[in-house]
């Protein structure tokens, strides 16, 4: 009987020590790396539409397109021109499209209407606007001809995200040209992807697209 008591007690103590060991070993860190699933949509086309505030029929549209995001072919910049009038204020809207599935029905500057896209064209902008909290559009003007675009065009971002405090986004903007001489130059438009690092400046994060338009003010 004494032997069995000894064994049972020993077994209980060993079991208890095992449980304590298990509990202490559970305090280790656990890590999971989650890669992003393959994207269903590409960002092939950036459209900038400028509507004259005083004459809404005066709408200027320019398009930058790269149907081979892998870089096989150079981007199509044949419609990446923007002609603005002097001393005018424009309401500007940026659109991002996926035209990989509609290479034979591309949008063009003369007939662009975001509400009448070809059925195979994907309006990526809808999703981007749902993710405003970590996107930022940055504009960079290159001096160019005449008095220079830097001195002749003022750009203000009009839309804000849901961060606290709200930060600018840049999908909706106001362009104001000055009443000066004719000028020209290049406008670089960069969409920054800034997950958890958006602070209002252009530096943090990665880049979703980096496109340019040739701009004339006359």
């Amino acid at each position, binding site marked *: 009987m004494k032997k069995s*008591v000894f064994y049972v007690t020993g077994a209980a103590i060993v079991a208890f020590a095992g449980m304590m060991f298990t*509990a202490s070993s559970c305090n280790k860190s656990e890590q999971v790396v*989650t*890669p992003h699933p393959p994207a269903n949509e590409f960002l092939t086309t950036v459209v900038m539409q400028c509507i004259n505030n005083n004459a809404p029929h005066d709408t200027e549209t320019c398009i930058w397109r790269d149907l081979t995001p892998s870089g096989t072919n150079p981007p199509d910049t044949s419609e990446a021109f923007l002609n603005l009038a002097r001393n005018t204020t424009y309401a500007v809207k940026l659109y991002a499209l996926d035209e990989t599935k509609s290479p034979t029905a591309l949008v063009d500057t003369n007939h662009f209407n975001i509400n009448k896209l070809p059925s195979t064209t994907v309006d990526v902008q809808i999703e981007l606007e749902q993710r405003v*909290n*970590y996107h930022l559009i940055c504009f960079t003007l290159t001096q160019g001809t005449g008095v220079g675009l830097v001195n002749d065009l003022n750009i203000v971002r009009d839309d804000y995200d849901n*961060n606290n405090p709200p930060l600018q986004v840049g999908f909706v903007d106001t362009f104001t040209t000055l009443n000066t001489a004719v000028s020209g130059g290049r406008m670089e438009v960069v969409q920054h992807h800034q*997950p*958890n690092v958006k602070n209002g400046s252009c530096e943090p994060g990665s880049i979703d697209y980096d496109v340019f338009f040739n701009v004339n003010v006359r």
Partner: protein
Amino acid sequence: MKKLSIIILALTLYIGANAQDASNPAKSADNSTMTNGFIGLLGGYSLSMGNWTHTSYITGDAGKWLSNNPDNLSAGFAGNGSTFGIEGAWYFCKNVGIGGLVSYSHYAFNGLDSLSAGYDKSFDVDQITTTVSGGYDIVNFMTGLYFRFPCSDKLDVTAKLLGGFTSATTPQIAVDVEDGGVDDGSFYQQRCTANSFGYMAGLGVSYKLNNWLGLNLQGIYASSEPDFMIDNTNRNNSIGRLITEYKQPLTNFNICLGVTYLIGNK
């Protein structure tokens, strides 16, 4: 839980009636094998129960974590764990005693994959690395009534109803964001400790190996509801799961084995 409370209340009344003629176990003539109390160690497996075990990460348009969704707010990602402690009781009459229990329980984090995938969906980035440290820890300091119902000279059915102080700590969650070859840094849901009232109800059997040593097997239901006010650091944008306050019942059921030193046996 209500049923358990009713059963324990009924047992208390029954035992109280019996106790009137056996108020001093040491002098009672018909219970020569009864002890006056015990002190012992216990440990075992702990099953987490209720909302804090849920692993919901519910998103809306464009992967946005829904901050008003009740499932999102109550999900605690708690897994199962282990528990161990020390307890003792003194029987002031034949079947009823007072005592206490101090225990520590640790619970693993459950659903790390879905949490990390949720953050990835919300941030729309190339890679999310989610690291959980610590798990849930719960320390109980309980006191209350102990009951015993002798079945034979060696075997008792036992029950207890305890209440007291519970201190619980949540795990730390670190999320590292990487996109476009750029490491956008990490943000943290920090570990948080909160205290509250807690209670336990237990039922088991104890076996007397000899005059001074016993073993017991018991099931213990425990619950508390601390109000965690959680710090989130380096959280720059309002995207993805963000919990700043967490107040849900930390309910668990423990299956424990114990070894006891018997006191005052004759």
